[in-house]
């Protein structure tokens, strides 16, 4: 009779969870807005930081991989731009992952006092990284001007790959943030993932340098597909299709596992946090 009827039962997976998620979209906007606002309010360096960090890493990687290790770049674009085109999605992924992973613990007071679909918290925390990404992207444009490099029109497809990076970070982040509620030492894994990931993802070098027989395995790292996609858009590097599809598959898999695990443990967050 009443459309607002709510039934509370143990283990009940609510059919209207996704509808609820939609109803609470305002909360999602406002939490994202809060995170962004707080982040850039507290630190003047906040903005500068999102430029300095990728810039310094790019300079170091360019020197180490191009000058010291003498690696080449297949498309003939400036090496620094190639590194930066990989650095952008990687930094974005790393930031989003750490924000999402710590989000539930960071908002413990909300979780234990108010009801809303919990997925909003990790989702909104990722948005801050999107802003950082936008700022760093301006730097990429500046570099293109500096090197007088004109990108291909394919750059318009970039949002697709941004979405991929977002999905990858969200899936893994959901899983880790849920685990984090129960096992607080899980957060120490994040810096480790980020550190290792930087080296097993083709950030400082082109993935075409990976031997052919390993490339398929290499693409099990979902960020390989994303970085390749970025370089395909920006530098017109050739795309290794099978690897790309494996990466997409891995992202979907992670996302699925993350969502399922999160939904399963969500109800007990308030008791454990």
């Amino acid at each position, binding site marked *: 009779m009443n459309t*607002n009827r*709510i*039934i*509370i039962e143990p283990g009940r997976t609510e059919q209207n969870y996704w509808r609820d998620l939609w109803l609470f979209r305002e*909360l999602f906007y406002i939490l994202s807005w809060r995170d962004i606002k707080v982040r850039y309010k507290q630190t003047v360096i906040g903005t500068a930081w999102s430029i300095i960090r990728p810039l310094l890493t790019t300079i170091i990687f360019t020197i180490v991989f191009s000058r010291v290790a003498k690696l080449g770049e297949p498309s003939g674009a400036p090496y620094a731009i190639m590194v930066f085109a990989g650095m952008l999605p990687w930094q974005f992924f790393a930031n989003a992952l750490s924000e999402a992973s710590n989000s539930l613990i960071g*908002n413990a007071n909300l979780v234990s006092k*108010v009801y809303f679909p919990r997925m909003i918290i990790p989702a909104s925390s990722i948005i801050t990284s999107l802003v950082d990404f936008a700022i760093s992207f301006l730097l990429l444009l500046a570099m293109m001007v500096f090197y007088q490099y004109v990108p291909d029109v394919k750059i318009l497809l970039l949002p697709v790959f941004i979405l991929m990076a977002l999905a990858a970070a969200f899936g893994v982040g959901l899983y880790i943030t849920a685990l984090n509620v129960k096992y607080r030492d899980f957060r120490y894994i994040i810096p480790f993932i980020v550190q290792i990931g930087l080296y097993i993802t083709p950030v400082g070098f082109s993935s075409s340098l990976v031997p052919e027989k390993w490339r398929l395995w290499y693409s099990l790292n979902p960020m390989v597909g994303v970085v390749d996609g970025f370089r395909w858009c920006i530098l017109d590097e050739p795309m290794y299709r099978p690897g790309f599809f494996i990466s997409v598959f891995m992202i979907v898999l992670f996302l699925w596992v993350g969502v399922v695990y999160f939904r399963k443990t969500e109800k007990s967050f308030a*008791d454990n946090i």
Partner: protein
Amino acid sequence: MSDTIITVENLSKCYIIAHEERERYTSLRDVMTRRVKNAFSFGKSSYKNPSSQEEFWALKDLNFEIKRGDRVGIIGRNGAGKSTLLKILSRITEPTTGRVTIDGRVASLLEVGTGFHPELTGRENIFLNGAILGMSRAEIRVKFDEIVAFAEVEKFLDTPVKRYSSGMYVRLAFAVAAHMEPEILIVDEVLAVGDAQFQKKCLGKMEDVSRNEGRTVLFVSHNMQALLSLCKKGIYLIGGKVETIDEINQTINSYLSQSNTFNSHDDLTSLTTALKSDEDFKLKNILFYQDSQRIFGNVVNGKEIQIEVHYELSNKLNGFRVFLDVCDPIGSIAFRSFHDEETGRHLDMEPGRYVSKVTIPADLLAPISYDFRFLFGIHNIRMTQPEEGISFRINVEQTGKYNEAYNGQYTAGMICPPLKWEVKSIN
């Protein structure tokens, strides 16, 4: 039209308490070391060591119904399951068994200012808090001026709330919550904060919301007066079970007659009517003072506490005495004191009104919670009603000198008088 808005059937909630772990959370490291340990001790102990885990039923087989437009007060001692019940109804945590059916939008206010961010301004926090409580931006915009006026913070709208006084903070937070328009409003003891005048205003607002707009209100409080004035019905919980469900004054009576524990916010004068009457003796009031200020529940142990017990005797009583048991929360008596103990003999008391005053010295109480239980009786003859006495829960905060060892932390014991020690080498 069916008028039942909330139906609760066989609702139970069980928490597992781990005795071993002192930490608030498990860490993966612990789990792994435990598994490894157990892997090497086959058969000796299973992973779940039964002695280290215990079930605690915060709620057990609750059944009740709430009608549309009812204002229901939920009463019970600490740990009776009130907050757990509210958490389940607000969908923050899920029940272990049972089922709740709710027909309508629920807004719950379990804490004042949930999600307020200290760095954001008052204006920004209104929108943030509103969204957290389930209001849309459009709704908040419509109510904005009303909220600001209610909270009396016009001048500080663009100041970060970290610079607000605690009173302003609470006012703003309550104002946002009070302007929600849900069908069911769930309020936990949030009025314990803020000054008396504001509390009155909040109660008035809640009354307004339910009486004039026909909302259903569920209200948890230890403040019997607030409950009496706001609610129509009451649910009294003991140990996670429904003890009484009735009209509010009946419920309060059964609560008071069973536990006689008051919150010192209560003005006893209006509540003593609920106590069992006695032919000789009538309690009027019990007041606590510290620094000549009336105190409500919270004291510091660095200063004296003065207590006044006001009562009336209708007959001449030889050997009538008031006495005080200071108990720890479990009920063990830390010490007992009689109002005639200094004189060393009975007082022969004529009919009339009396006040017995006592002072608890500074540097005696430990920084824990006590129940101050007042009992009344005629020496060697009988206890007067209320026979079980009347208790007040008093929380003591550490400001005095005391038995701290090394790190400035209170160590142990039911009282902590500073003692004189001397350490000498006797070689």
